[in-house]
């Protein structure tokens, strides 16, 4: 697609600016990444792939390859990109889950037959929304921990990559992750369906 060819140059430029601390580049960069994640997620959810799973990690990496000119970025820029993409991937998933929930709400006066159940397994909208809500509460306490959870769980980044993106030590990432995971487990366990389904792959 022409869009990709021209935007790879532009998005790389925006990322480099953003990495340098130019916050003016932020909204445009985020728009590009969100748009591309959304487009790819939609494609994966409906067609193009024969399996029935969606791996946000794979998606985030694919978007990186499509949008960023790898010859022009260093490890730090790369980590920054993934930090952004993890956050936006979360938003894409939540937007999708909300839209789907809204869609499933039966319209008044419409008869819902007994067999009107989703076939296969639900993209775990309830669980996703519960995790997002808990993550939101954690974010209020400690934004860095929420970023770490996104980067690890949604974008599948290593502790080293996360440390690089956040400009902290690996030791800090490990500590934050450990406590954040325990806290989220507690928060979601109060809604047992959510903890079980999110934890099980």
């Amino acid at each position, binding site marked *: 697609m022409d869009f990709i060819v021209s935007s790879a140059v532009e998005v790389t430029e925006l990322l480099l600016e953003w990495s340098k601390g130019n916050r003016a580049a932020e909204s445009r960069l985020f728009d590009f990444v969100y748009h591309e994640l959304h487009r790819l997620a939609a*494609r994966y959810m409906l*067609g193009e792939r024969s399996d029935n799973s969606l791996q946000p990690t794979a998606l985030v990496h694919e978007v990186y390859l499509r949008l960023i000119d790898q010859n022009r970025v260093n490890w730090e820029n790369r980590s920054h990109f993934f930090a952004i993409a993890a956050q936006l991937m979360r938003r894409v*998933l939540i937007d999708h889950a909300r839209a789907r929930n809204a869609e499933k709400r039966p319209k008044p006066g419409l008869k819902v037959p007994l067999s*009107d159940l989703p076939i296969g397994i639900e*993209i775990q909208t309830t669980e996703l929304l519960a995790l997002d809500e808990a993550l939101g509460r954690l974010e209020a306490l400690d934004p860095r921990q929420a970023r770490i959870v996104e980067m690890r769980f949604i974008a*599948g980044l290593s502790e080293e990559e996360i440390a690089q993106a956040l400009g902290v030590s690996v030791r800090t990432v490990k500590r934050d992750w450990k406590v954040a*995971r325990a806290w989220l487990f507690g928060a979601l366990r109060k809604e047992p369906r959510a903890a079980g389904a*999110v934890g099980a792959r």
Partner: protein
Amino acid sequence: MLPEQWERVKEAFDAIVDLDAAGRTTALSELRLQDPELHAAVEELVANHDRAGDFLTEPMALELVPTLTVGEIIAGRYEIVRFIGRGGMGEVYEAQDNQLGERVALKTIGPDIALDDRYVARFVREVKLARNVTNKHVCRVHDVGQQDGSTRRISFLTMELIEGETLAARLRRCHHLPAAEAFPLIEQMAEALSAAHEEKIIHRDFKPANIMLTLENGYTPWWSRTSAWHAARLPLRACNQDSRVSPRGPPAILRPNCSTRGRGRQSPPTFTRSAWSSGRC
């Protein structure tokens, strides 16, 4: 909890969680004496840490569900019976056509296409063309339609429901086909393509996943039907009309000089190309 309190909980948790059982007990008892509130929070967190198992340790993987549900009626006519699978452009369902009392295959079209009116218009035009092809090796296309929902639009086509497996599945299962089985299939595929070419239609997505193998009359050999005619295009005209639409076939199947990966101007698809890819099957 406030961020300042969380900071203290975090520190205490970090100091305690990696200790052995005896060490944890001692440290927690000390903490209880100093600050009962903090103790309660840390104790709960340590317990959750121990119970968490593999929670969140593997990157997220979401299972997808079909867009349509069983029993749902599309366009006031097609009742969804079951989800068959995902493929090329969208999802495939078995549906009951309540008007004609027949089972049909209903294919939904991916949202990136369904939401663009120009694409939909093209799609409808192409399905109409594909309907002109009548050959026993070509899957019949019945109808094309749309249904607008509150948050989504479903574009779909209905076609002959073929029971069987795709050539791709068959090749995966058997690794290779003996020549005696393969030759008749190739002939049938060539016949299907040539019937389309007579109507000036090229398939553009001719690949093993779009060939259905059926067993006709019990013992006769495998019988091939070419489906996915919604990918069919009128040569030249369609491409010149709308340069945004690129060939949808996978590069491995398109002839190399027509690959979508190329930077140069794309040449329009031609009859030779789908005939070329039939040799690749």
